[in-house]
Structure formats: C-alpha cells, structure tokens
C-alpha cells in the first residue's frame, strides 16, 4: 500500500563550480539565498502535501519551478535541507533518458543492470526480460548498444524496465517527450493499471494533454513554492489565472 507524506520540505541547492560567482544574489532575492559565503538556490520552499494510494499526480509549473527537484527528493536522491518525506511502497523512478544507463552496453545488458540494482534475482530477471522487450517493442534492437538508440527507443526501454515490476510508487520526469502516440497510449494505460492496484504515480511534465489524460490530481509548483494541490482541472485553472495576471 503506497503513501507519500511530505512535511515542510525545503531544499537549498548549493551553487558550486564558479556558478556562485556568476550570479548576483541581490538581483534575485526571490530565488537565491546567501549563507555565509555560499549561495543557494531556493529550489523548494516549505512544501507540504499528502498523496494517497491510487492517485495519479501531475506535477506542473514552469521551467525551474522545482518539479525535478521534488521528484528527486521523493526518490531519495536529494536529501532535503529541512523537512522530511515519509513514504511507504517500493519506488521506481525515471529521471531522464541519459541517466542511469551504460551507453556502450546493449539494451539487454542495461535491463540486467537496472534489474540487479532493483534487487531482482537471476530467475526474476530471466522471467522479465522477454516481457520488457515485448513492451518496449524493440525487437532485435535489444542486442544493440544503447548509444545507437533513438530517444524514443531509449524511452520505451527505460519506461518498460521502470514499470515492469509493478512498483508501488512511480516517479517520472518529462518521460513523454520522445514516445510516439501509440506508445504514449500504452504507457498511460500501464500507469493507470498501476494506480488501480493502489499505487501512486507522480509525473512531472509540461505536456498538458498528457497530464490531463493520466492524472486526476495535480500539484503546481512556482519557484519552489507549492501554489495549488487538488483536482488537476482546478490546479490548471489557478495556474492560468495567476500567469495571465503576471504576464499581462
């Protein structure tokens, strides 16, 4: 049974490697904070929410609003500066098509790597590989190195791996960009299946059609602040009203 509770999440993203010198904190008082000699981006600010089992959450907001950061906090990649996340359920995540892969290894080998990381046994791997190949529709391409794949092929493979073991919590960051319409439909179906089995999916995307098709609930982030959380239609309505005012 899946559940995610976030309490007062804040994340200060440290600027390093010269980036700290190139930015003037005084000109960006809304997004940069200076502590001592170090500068931080206020990537998340006091975000609190609760996601119940059986919910598909769409994470919306403009570029740099903190969607990816929030997904990484939920996935345990980033440790929040303050606040905490309490989640129950096996997590599977997809943060990007170029991360967590060995480009020189074949598609099949990459399935094995990701399977091993997820702790699948040898038997489970053997059992799942044909299923993943079938879902990703890669056919014989599965034995070519990943670097030869198109974005769409890579996406299909990674999505198939991420979802094949029925994770209880699925975190997806901008995963849709590369898939064709047919695959999007299939992927949306699989996400719905997952939610039907009392799972949770959290999808960050700028693709409004996708979000409205698969998500009933939404969270709107704006410069690290959660501005709305509720039925997706209401969230979009609030967001549009806000930006109509701001951009006018």
């Amino acid at each position, binding site marked *: 049974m899946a559940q995610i509770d976030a309490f007062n999440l804040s994340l200060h993203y440290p600027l390093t490697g010269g980036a700290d010198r190139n930015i003037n904190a005084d000109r960006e008082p809304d997004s940069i904070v200076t502590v001592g000699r170090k500068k931080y981006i206020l990537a998340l600010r006091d975000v609190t929410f609760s996601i119940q089992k059986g919910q598909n959450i769409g994470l919306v907001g403009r570029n740099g609003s903190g969607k990816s950061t929030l997904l990484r906090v939920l996935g345990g990649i980033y440790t929040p500066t303050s606040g905490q996340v309490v989640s129950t359920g096996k997590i599977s995540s997809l943060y990007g098509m170029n991360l967590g892969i*060995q480009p020189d290894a074949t598609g099949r080998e990459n399935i094995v790597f990701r399977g091993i990381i997820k702790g699948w046994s040898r038997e489970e791997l053997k059992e799942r590989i044909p299923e993943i190949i079938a879902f990703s529709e890669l056919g014989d391409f599965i034995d070519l190195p990943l670097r030869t794949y198109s974005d769409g092929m890579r996406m299909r493979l990674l999505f198939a791996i991420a979802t094949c073991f029925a994770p209880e919590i699925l975190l997806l960051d901008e995963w849709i960009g590369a898939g064709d319409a047919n695959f999007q439909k299939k992927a949306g179906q699989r996400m719905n299946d997952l939610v039907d089995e009392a799972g949770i999916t959290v999808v960050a995307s700028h693709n409004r059609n996708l979000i409205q098709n698969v998500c009933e609930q939404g969270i709107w982030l704006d410069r690290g602040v959660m501005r709305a959380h509720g039925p997706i239609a209401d969230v979009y309505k609030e967001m549009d009203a806000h930006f109509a005012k701001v951009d006018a």
Partner: protein
Amino acid sequence: MQPKAAFNDIVQGALLWRVWLSLSWQEFVSTYRRSLIGVFWVMLSFAAFVFIKLTIFSSLLGADDVRYYDAYLVIGFFMWVFSQQVIMTAPDTFVSASGWIRSEALPLSTYIYKMVMREIYNLLFTFVVVIVALVYLQYPVDIKALYAVPAILFLLLNAFAVKLMLGIIGARVRDISHLVKAVMLPMMFLTPIFWMPSQMPNLMKVLWWNPLFHAIEIFRAPILDGTFPTESWIFMGVVFAIVSVSGFLLFSRLRQRIVFWF
C-alpha cells in the same frame, strides 16, 4: 557529521556486490569492445612496455646482476602501473558515475567498489605477464614470496581509501583530477622502479618519504628478496590510517552533498 550513516553507506554498498561486479566488468570489457583481441590489449600493452624497458634499461644501467635487475624492474613496474592507475582515476570516482548518482538512490560507496574492481581486473591481466617474465628469467622465488599476498590485499584496501578521499575532493574541486595527473608523471622517476635505492643513496634519503616507494616495496621485496619489509609496512600502515580517516571524515560530512556538485 554523520559517521554512522557514512559507515552504513560503506557496508550497504559492499552488500550490493552484484551491482558493482556487473557494472565494473561491463565498463572494463567495453573499453576494448570491437577490438580484435579485446581485453588482451591490457596484457599486450603492458608486456610490450616491459619488454622495451628490459632491453633498454638493463643494458643501459649495466647492472651487476642482470637477472636480478630485470625481475626488479618487472615487478616494480607492475606495481607502479597499478598504483598510478589507482591514484589517477581516483578523483573521477564519483564524477564518472554522476549519471547513476543523480538517478539511483544507491549507497555512494557502490561506485568506489566498482572502481576498485576495475583495478583488480587490470591487476589480474597484467600479473600474467609478470609470471611469464619471471618464468622466462628463471628467477628463483622463495616461499616467502607469499608475503606479497597480504600486501596486495592491503593495497586494495588502500585503493578504496584513496578513491573515497580523492573521489570526494575531486568531485568538489575539479582541478584535483588534473593536478594528480600532473604530479604522477614525474613521480614515475622519483620512485625506484627503473633504478635501485642502492644506486642513489643520497637521493633515497629524501625519496624515502615517497609513499609509492613503500607501496611497491611491500609487494616487491617478498618476491624479489624473500624478505618482509617491516619498515615499509609500518609506513604504509600510517599512510592508510591518514587517508582512510580523512576520507571517512569527509564522507561523513559531505556524503549527501556530493549529488549537488555535478
């Protein structure tokens, strides 16, 4: 400071042996993929180097006992290549794994184990050449040569500590990777591999403080002379204590921040 979490990371990473074994082996093999003789290039390039060094140096230096010198050079160079590799790739330990670190919530030590495994593969392949060379030289090896076994295991432990420490520093300060490479080149001549300490007694008074000398010595002396180099073991013990403690302290403090540095 989270020493307990840092310690847990190192233990949990070790338990993920399936992950680092498969990743390291794939990376090792893929370096040579699509080449005709594949991983045997590791052996071949090392063998060619050894052969050329033997022909040039043993005649150039006019060593008293050519066979002894040849064996000295082969074993010393073998350990040099290993040590150099361990140190030069250490600052990239986490940087080269940034794609994994940013997408999988695995213990960070997993990537250190992975790097150490790659050193082991190189070690095993090049050691074949050492054996062949010693057999060819008909060099008499004592049973005390087995002291080299704990030495290599200890050096692998050292490699872990070096990669932990330099991996963190190298991820934060990207100059370190270049600095280390720049330093290691002259070190090849400042470490007695091609020349013997007995040939340069004055220079050795200073170079005795070079840890690489002792790292090589604890492995080389048992095979070459059938001795247990106590002094060098003590020196390396101190080096290990310093490197592992400072590495662990850095890890305790910065572990959760490393992911923000890429």
